[in-house]
């Protein structure tokens, strides 16, 4: 009878784990698409992040804007998008991109946001719009961090500062 318990426990556990695994594969797909959707409505400059993330932990400004950078011609102060550095946090990588028009920040988009776990995704999705609004109002990286999203905020603002440096703002 003990064997009956052992066998059924093993079968039940295996079944539960396999079911979890299967539905996890499905979620992993949608999860990454959610993350990429969060990465920016513009959808441009997909290349960015990965190369940067391999490098040592991105302390902010030092590394030059890794990719994309200013759009074509004209002077440095013209319309352009500038990607900030990739900042590694314990909850995932963060990278933002700014759109600059006539020396003013007109838009901030997150190319990558903390997404290590479901909870991080939630926090990111809550914090990113707030940070964007604050940055657009302040026209600098000198804004309040979002409470409850300290890690994400710090990384966001560090990456933003790198982008601002790249844009010479």
């Amino acid at each position, binding site marked *: 009878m003990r064997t009956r318990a052992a066998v059924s426990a093993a079968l039940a556990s295996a079944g*539960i784990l396999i079911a979890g*695994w299967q539905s996890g594969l499905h*979620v992993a797909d949608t999860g990454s698409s959610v993350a990429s959707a969060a990465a920016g409505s513009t959808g441009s400059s997909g290349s960015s992040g990965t190369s940067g993330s391999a490098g040592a*932990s991105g302390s902010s400004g030092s590394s030059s804007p890794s990719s994309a950078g200013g759009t074509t011609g004209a002077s440095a102060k013209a319309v352009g998008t500038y990607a900030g550095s990739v900042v*590694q946090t314990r909850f995932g990588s963060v990278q933002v991109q700014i759109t600059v028009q006539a020396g003013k920040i007109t838009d901030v988009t997150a190319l990558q946001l903390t997404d*290590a*776990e479901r909870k991080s995704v939630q926090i990111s999705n809550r914090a990113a719009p707030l940070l964007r609004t604050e940055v657009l109002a302040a026209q600098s990286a000198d804004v309040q961090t979002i409470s409850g999203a300290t890690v994400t905020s710090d990384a966001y603002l560090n990456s933003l500062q790198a982008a601002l440096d790249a844009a010479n703002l």
Partner: protein
Amino acid sequence: MNTQLLTNRPGVRRNSGGAVNPFRAQYRRRLLRADLLTVLFWASLAGAVALWLADGGVAGFSTPAGSFTALGIVAGLAGMDLVLLMLLLAARIPLIDQTVGHDRALEFHRKLGKPALYLLLAHGILIAIGYGMAEGLDPVSESVALWVLVPDMWLAYISMLLFIAVVVTSLVAVRRRFPYEFWYAVHLLTYAAVLTSLPHQFSVGGLFAEGTWQRWYWLALCIATGAALLYYRVVQPLVATFRHQLTVKRVVRVAPGVVSIEMSGLRLDELAGSGGRFFIWRFLAPGLWWHPHPFSLSAEPVRFDAAGQGTLRITVRNLGRGSSQLASLKPGTKVAVEGPYGLFSTAARSRKHVVMVGAGIGITPVRALLESTPFQPGNATVILRGHSESELYLGEEILDLCRRRGATLFHLTGSRPAGIRTWLPEHAARAGHRLASYHPNITDADVYVCGPSAWAHNVLEDARAAGVREDQIHYERFDW
């Protein structure tokens, strides 16, 4: 000396042959419940991990740092699940108690203590490594950073320290050095440990993240555990205490250092069949009320005695600080009660034969079981063991019950022989007697054993050697 007080009449044995086993169905149901609980246990652990997988946990394994973090999360989930299961095992849930017994449930609870702690430690260490790698910090700096920077993490560190304290004070070697009350007080910190661990699971971890199945699983498990503890450890004892209104009727001296405490109360018919099972008693007298005593009933509850009152009886020996004051209990003292608990009862029966072996004060639950458990005349054997006849407490009552019910009674008195591992007195051991010598159909019998643990283990060994299967052996430990 070895006295066979009642011999089987030859005519009686006939019954043992063909009759069907009346306990077969009950026994199968109990095994089924036990198996079901085993499956639920493992399924719960698997479920904790599976729900994490279902929420896309595997994605973490794409990087080395993520792998450490993911393993850390799995360890944490399994650890939390184990802690909640341990609480459920200690909640005195009747389903568990009536399936494996209070002592076995607590034994399992104890066995899980170290694995749970190791999982929680692994959780902390692996997460510190994983997060540290992602940030470019060594694990120690990362731990400090987590403590300082991430909200609620300091509570998780406190929780970890509390868990360590609880497990360390429960290690046998450590536990022996401190009084029971110290261990109990530290053990209560488990609740603080669980509560302080919850905030970081909400804020940092994903256990309760909105829109996930994990949220519902953990909410359900936490609430169910809390409710079970509250109901079975707080509400049920209060209800039982108020319902039965027990008061001490009289205290009768049975032998030197041994007293029977008789209590009268209401609605005791509801406790029928609990003879031999134990309750946790609190005698509400100055200096005594805070001390819980686990004692078995030494007789079936009487619904109406001569005075029209219901009565209960326990028989206790002066064993320690708490028990010594019991002899001087005053009639009229109110008694708070929790129970009945344990499987030293008919609920554990699986065969039609029954052998009851009691030593010292362990004789008293045997007395109660003998009174109520069903058997055909000739199918039961009672073996009482003590250094001398005066240690065979309630011996006269037992002799009387054996006469009336047709059970065979043996008094085995005398010291154990030196140098041999046996539960028998010297003369019986020298004569080559075994447990099977006292009841020939032992392989078709339930064997109930109650007595000091070293002695009892020798009885169990003898029973196993005679071919008695594990699920026929009913031994209640009181050293939990």
